[in-house]
């Protein structure tokens, strides 16, 4: 049995083991057993599909050609993983909460469930991953061929018919397609989890790591002669001096960092297949550690290979050819299995991820919009169609990969194609990062950025890179498109001499990002887009879904029918029953509340993608409304809180104000009640004094027998005088009460002020024994006034009377002066007596206020009445400070004082 036959047998046995593992894992997961299937270890190992056949074989070749540059392919992902707390954690959380099925689905969901965007990302992914799949086929074929060569040299006499390379690639492609179809499309799981595939991939991860480490250890300690000797050999080799191209270094690190998130297969295992967010915690250190171990022996293997193998051997295959050269067939077999594992696991997961994208975003929307698809929705089981579409998609993708492999041949170095694929997939990065961290990112912006980046990538990297000569005519490469020199594919905008990959990365990502940001700033997103944007960016702050659906009970039945066709009858029934119970409905049909529709949409999107699920519910429910309230609720809960607290504040201020008003009113009432009491007691007192005297004298008149006429008339005179005083007091009180209640009716007439004063002086001084001398200036008094003349005269009489009564002077004199005070007219009454003591001035206008005892027998109401009258007339009366004697000022409003001239 020659080496090649053994190889094929081992391969088949290995594949059978993989099948068995995948099958067992599916079984265990189906029965709910096997918690270890969901452990962080399996998760981390499944991430290792990042290390493909390119990595396994190509890294050594890369190191042999360019020294340490190969390490950038691993450093990029390491940087992403160690920043998991603010990057990947958010991505995984969103992926789980939105039930995302692929990277295209994530972008579609973020940008308003736009299927157009999903289609764009899907096309981009298929175009850039196909060469990558071809690369894996190439690596497997190459490894076969080297065994064939070895077998030929061992067995003597080559047998070309035994090992046609094309045939082997074809067989491998078919085998991988079958595996992917069997385990990648078994069911439409809720979150597209494929335990079988993931477990098989994890096993393959172990195999490739063990294989590479074994080869490495053998090379260092078996061939190289120990660690220090190997290091010495490294320094002595042609890559023995530190040499680096800074631009390429940075660009490739960036590409690798983008690829670990954006590659469909990485997204599949990292986000979609993620069972528990906390697994990231372990993967964050374990995956970089895995990468470190994978690259630990790359440089030694490359150097020893360059040293020991004959010139012209393919450095991409040192991993295999070194053990073969040393005659270690077992180790070579292990290394071959490692490379085989790397290639197959990548191809299977990539084909699966791409088939999900193709079926969810390209085929299903088309199918559902055709008549046939609508008929199927009403009568058949859509799940079969979806599964069929996926199976066919996997076949088509594998076929594309195979044709690409056939087309490009095996002349190109593995790493070059890999980098082209990375650069293509990295075009997703701006829209992805922007979508996760910037609420202002819009669908138009994402579409523009992707289109610009995609076009530049195709023009500068993909087309020139395909095949030995590239697909772009030499004329364009030399002179630029349409003869424009600044459009040369490898020297855009006239900048020559850049490394092609750096050139592509620089221009495509730069202009991609610029277009994305500029168009996002210029465009205006739809409400749904804004809602989704807020949910994505603030995924850690809130867990409420968008509540945009409106429906009626009549549609519930249609929803059940549709859900059954997508989820299967059992799961759909269970979902609807659970929901009905949650709502407390009696039957099995829940109300199509917005919450329920939202949950249903997510459930469906787990099977057919966000955009399609959304479209299907729209078909039945007939549209959605994103109200301003929804936007408020999701986007600006804090604003609502603020408004609420402002309302509370306003209310509390209002209450405080009302309470203050009430307290004031209460104070006033209390005061008024006190005033009334004191007024009553004062009035009683005032009434009692004359009454007492009247009673006493009338008793004397009644009881005393012998009274002289003279005495009688004197007593009667006293009684009469007291009675008059009493009457006057009552008159005054009546007058005051009328004035205070505002019941007085004013009798307005026009007259000259001097007339009124004349009358007042005459009536006040009538009958006085020693009339006060009045000093007036007739010219000032010639002012026409229009007011209640009698009332005004009453005020004047009172003032003049007071002066007559209280002026204690040898030559009493009253000075009356009239002057204009702006818009008012002032009439001053100043006498030459002692005036009112300072402390009593505030009180003279109060009722019953009397200064210096009851000398003149007044009731103390005169000035109070004066003030009331002047209030009624719209004027005022005040005491004038700054005069020796008593001084009062009467103010008349202007409209009542008209110039007489």
């Amino acid at each position, binding site marked *: 049995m020659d080496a090649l036959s053994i190889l094929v047998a081992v391969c088949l046995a290995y594949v059978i083991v993989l099948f068995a593992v995948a099958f067992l894992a599916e079984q265990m997961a189906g029965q709910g057993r096997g918690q270890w299937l969901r452990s962080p270890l399996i998760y981390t190992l499944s991430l290792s599909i990042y290390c493909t056949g390119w990595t396994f074989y190509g890294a050594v070749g890369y190191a042999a050609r360019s*020294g*340490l540059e190969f*390490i950038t392919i691993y*450093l990029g992902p*390491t*940087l*992403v*993983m*160690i*920043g*998991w*707390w*603010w990057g990947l954690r958010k991505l995984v959380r969103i992926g789980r909460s939105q039930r995302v099925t692929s990277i295209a689905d994530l972008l579609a969901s973020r940008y308003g469930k736009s299927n157009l965007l999903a289609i764009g990302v899907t096309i981009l992914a298929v175009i850039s991953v196909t060469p990558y799949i071809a690369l894996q086929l190439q690596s497997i074929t190459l490894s076969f061929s080297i065994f064939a060569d070895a077998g030929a040299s061992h067995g003597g006499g080559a047998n070309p018919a035994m090992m046609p390379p094309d045939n082997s690639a074809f067989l491998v492609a078919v085998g991988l397609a079958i595996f992917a179809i069997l385990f990648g499309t078994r069911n439409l799981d809720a979150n597209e989890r494929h335990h079988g595939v993931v477990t098989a991939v994890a096993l393959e991860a172990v195999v490739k790591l063990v294989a590479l480490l074994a080869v490495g250890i053998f090379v260092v300690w078996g061939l190289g002669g120990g660690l220090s000797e190997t*290091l*010495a050999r*490294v*320094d002595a*080799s042609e*890559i*023995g*001096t*530190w*040499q*680096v191209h*800074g631009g390429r*270094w*940075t660009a490739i*690190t960036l590409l690798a960092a983008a690829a670990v998130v954006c590659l469909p297969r990485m997204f599949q295992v990292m986000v979609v297949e993620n069972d528990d967010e*906390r697994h990231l*915690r*372990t993967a*964050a*250190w374990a995956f*970089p*550690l895995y990468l*470190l171990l994978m690259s*630990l022996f790359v*440089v030694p293997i490359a150097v020893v290979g360059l040293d020991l193998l004959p010139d012209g051997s393919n450095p991409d295959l040192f991993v295999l050819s070194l053990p073969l050269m040393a005659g270690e067939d077992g180790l070579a077999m292990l290394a071959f299995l490692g490379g085989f594992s790397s290639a197959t696991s990548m191809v299977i997961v990539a084909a699966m991820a791409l088939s999900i994208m193709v079926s969810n975003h390209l085929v299903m929307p088309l199918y559902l919009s055709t008549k046939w698809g609508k008929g199927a929705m009403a009568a058949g089981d859509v799940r079969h169609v979806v599964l069929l579409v996926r199976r066919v998609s996997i076949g088509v993708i594998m076929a594309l990969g195979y044709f690409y492999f056939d087309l490009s041949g095996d002349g190109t170095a593995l790493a070059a194609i890999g980098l082209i694929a990375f650069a293509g997939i990295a075009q997703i990065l701006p829209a992805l990062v922007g979508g996760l961290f910037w609420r202002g990112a819009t669908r138009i912006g994402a579409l523009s950025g992707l289109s610009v980046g995609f076009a530049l990538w195709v023009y500068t990297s993909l087309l020139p890179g395909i095949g030995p000569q590239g697909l772009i005519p030499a004329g364009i490469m030399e002179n630029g498109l349409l003869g424009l020199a600044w459009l040369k594919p490898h020297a855009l905008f006239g900048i020559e001499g850049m490394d092609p990959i750096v050139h592509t990365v620089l221009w495509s990502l730069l202009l991609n990002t610029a277009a994305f940001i500029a168009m996002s700033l210029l465009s205006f997103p739809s409400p749904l887009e804004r809602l989704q944007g807020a949910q994505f960016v603030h995924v850690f702050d809130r867990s409420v879904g968008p509540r945009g659906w409106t429906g009626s009970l009549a549609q519930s039945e249609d929803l059940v029918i549709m859900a059954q066709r997508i989820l299967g009858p059992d799961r759909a029934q269970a979902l609807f029953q659970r929901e009905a119970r949650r709502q407390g409905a009696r039957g099995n049909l829940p109300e199509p509340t917005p919450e329920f529709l939202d949950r249903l949409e997510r459930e469906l999107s787990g099977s057919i993608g966000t955009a399609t699920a959304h479209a299907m519910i729209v078909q039945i429910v007939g549209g959605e409304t994103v109200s301003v309230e929804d936007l408020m609720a999701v986007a600006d809960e804090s604003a609502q809180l603020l408004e609420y607290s402002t309302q509370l504040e306003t209310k509390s201020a209002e209450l405080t104000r009302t309470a203050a008003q009430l307290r004031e009113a209460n104070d006033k009432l209390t005061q008024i009640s006190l005033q009334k009491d004191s007024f009553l007691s004062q009035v009683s007192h005032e009434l009692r004094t004359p009454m007492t005297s009247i009673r006493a004298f009338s008793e004397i008149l009644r009881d005393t027998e012998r009274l002289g006429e003279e005495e009688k008339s004197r007593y009667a005179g006293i009684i009469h005088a007291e009675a008059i005083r009493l009457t006057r007091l009552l008159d005054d009180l009546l007058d005051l009460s009328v004035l205070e209640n505002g019941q007085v009716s004013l009798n307005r007439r026009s007259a000259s002020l001097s007339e009124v004063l004349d009358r007042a002086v005459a009536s006040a001084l009538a009958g006085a024994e020693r009339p006060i001398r009045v000093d007036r200036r007739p010219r000032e008094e010639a002012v026409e006034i229009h007011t209640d003349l009698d009332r005004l005269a009453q005020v004047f009489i009172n003032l003049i009377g007071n002066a007559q009564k209280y002026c204690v002077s040898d030559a009493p004199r009253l000075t009356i002066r009239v002057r204009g005070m702006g818009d008012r007219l002032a009439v001053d009454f100043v006498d030459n007596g002692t005036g009112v003591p300072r402390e009593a001035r505030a009180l003279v206008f109060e009722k019953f206020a009397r200064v210096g005892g009851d000398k003149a027998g007044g009731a103390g109401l005169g000035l109070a009445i004066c003030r009331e009258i002047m209030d009624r007339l719209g004027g005022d009366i005040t005491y004038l400070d700054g005069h020796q004697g008593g001084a009062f000022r009467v103010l008349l409003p202007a409209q009542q004082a008209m110039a007489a001239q």
Partner: protein
Amino acid sequence: MSTRRPNIFLERETYRRRRVLDAARLLPVLGAALLALPLLWPQQGEAGALPMSLVTIYYFTVWALLILCVFIFGRTTRKWDAGAEPRPPRAAPQPGDPRGR
């Protein structure tokens, strides 16, 4: 007095958590800086060009250190899960533990 002491403790713990998270955010920046550093070193054709073995050892050392840092960060934050990301309580809350840990 006995009710105030846990508060002070909690404050300090929260503060510490924030700083650890700051450090975790800065770790990729530190990593990028350390990994880009050799770009400035003398290269082939320049005076004092470094041997490949030295640069290789530098890279793998930095790499291992970064992995160690993330590992320690993961271990530190593992204990926070209950506090940092509130999840629906499975059982009745423990009456004796006011801090909810």
